[in-house]
């Protein structure tokens, strides 16, 4: 489904990703974790081509992602992305947020786009919020709407970059519940998160990154029981401590 081969990227002189390779199959849920600054966000942004890379090849559903960002737009529209800070469009209502790309990228009619949006909003329990503006909603509600906005594009895979780390603790559960349900339905998901509970419940494999490298890729049970690298062991002991 998504194949990444030998991905390298640097910002100026600073190498951020070094020779990263990963293959994610259809319906698989992969969790990426690692210390702050290890390149996790950059890695997922490279996966749908919104960050240009210096070396490497990304194949999505059999299509090689063109190196020119503009040429990648069509493929990009097939991969949903959810951000740490939601990134709903503040000048648009919830409904308009969900319909914007459906109408302008997929060229759907407004009626079809709105019907799609309503069905998805109902699923995440926010049917009554369609005419609200993002600033009128809680963080948890905004993030669930951001997920709906991505799902409305009928993506073949979903990328999440720390979807719960900007949320108050009491709102994390409602967002994770939506993500768990998605995973159970067989959505292909790549999730950067430190929510180890979610990882244990949903992920088939865990990717551990450090200093821009993929240090370890392991089955979830394996990773938690006995990480093979020292760095992962250290990271786990620190993160599970609190």
């Amino acid at each position, binding site marked *: 489904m998504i194949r990444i081969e030998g991905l390298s990227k640097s910002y100026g002189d600073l190498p951020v990703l070094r020779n990263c390779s990963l293959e994610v199959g259809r319906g698989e849920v992969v969790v990426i974790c690692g210390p702050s600054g290890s390149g996790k966000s950059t890695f997922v*942004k490279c996966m*749908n081509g*919104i960050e240009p890379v210096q070396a490497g090849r990304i194949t999505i559903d059999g299509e090689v992602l063109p190196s020119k*960002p*503009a040429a990648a*737009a*069509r493929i*990009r*529209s*097939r*991969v*949903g*992305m959810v*951000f740490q*800070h939601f*990134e*709903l*469009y*503040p*000048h648009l209502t919830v409904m308009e947020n969900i319909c*914007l*790309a459906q109408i*302008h*990228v*997929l060229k759907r009619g407004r009626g079809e786009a709105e019907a799609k949006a309503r069905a998805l909003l109902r699923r995440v329990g926010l049917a009554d919020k369609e005419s609200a*503006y993002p*600033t*009128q909603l809680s963080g948890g509600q905004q993030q669930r709407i951001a997920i709906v*906005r*991505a799902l409305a*594009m009928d993506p073949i895979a979903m990328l999440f970059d720390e979807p719960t780390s900007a949320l108050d603790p009491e709102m994390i559960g409602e967002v994770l519940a939506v993500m768990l349900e998605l995973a159970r339905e067989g959505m292909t998901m790549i999730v950067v998160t430190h929510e180890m509970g979610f990882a244990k419940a949903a992920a088939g494999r865990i990717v551990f990154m450090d200093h821009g490298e993929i240090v370890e890729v392991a089955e979830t049970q394996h990773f938690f029981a006995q990480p093979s690298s020292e760095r992962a062991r250290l990271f786990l002991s620190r993160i599970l401590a609190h």
Partner: protein
Amino acid sequence: MSGFDISVILHALPFLAKGLGLSLALTAVAMIGGLALGLVIAVIRLSRFRFPAMLAALYVNGFRAVPLILVIFWFYFLVPLLLGRPVGALYSVLIAFVMFEGAYYSEIIRAGLKSVRPGQWQAAQASGMTYLQTIRLVVLPQALRKMAPLMVTQGVVLFQDTSLVYVVSLHDFMTSASIVANTQNRIVELYVFAAFVYFAICTTGSVLAQRLSSGRRHAY
């Protein structure tokens, strides 16, 4: 020259109104044209296309380096040369103002576009929007609210700058006022009146700018 003689102003009112008309028309055209040109320049400068972005930067820095009065002179002599026929002072001045204001407006628009946080660009791009769609549908609407007050302020400055057209013998409001002042020898009356008109128009502009910056529907 004794007393404050309002009748001089009343008498000259049609003449002054014509001058004011030119100033306002010039302001409107330069604002609309300058905004359109400025938007194009800003979008090019922020794009990935290095060479056009460099040319756009050169344009902006070039125009901002010279005084407007010089630009007006240039176009007065240059445009007829380029077109091979005279175009008249008015048209050359219109072109000069639009080109000049375009440089300034492009800086306001560019700063506004850049003030929208990177996550918004990324979210739009991630959903498959092109660069131009991202600007038009996501970034510009957010930037506009931040830019509106600055644009009005620039418009006020522009209105005051229209007095420079006297150098190519056009009669804007200020020029008309000084003509009347000198021919009627009523300097105090005319210049007080001129100051009052400028004050009224520019204050209206400033109030409008403040309204635009505080009267947002949803603060963000």
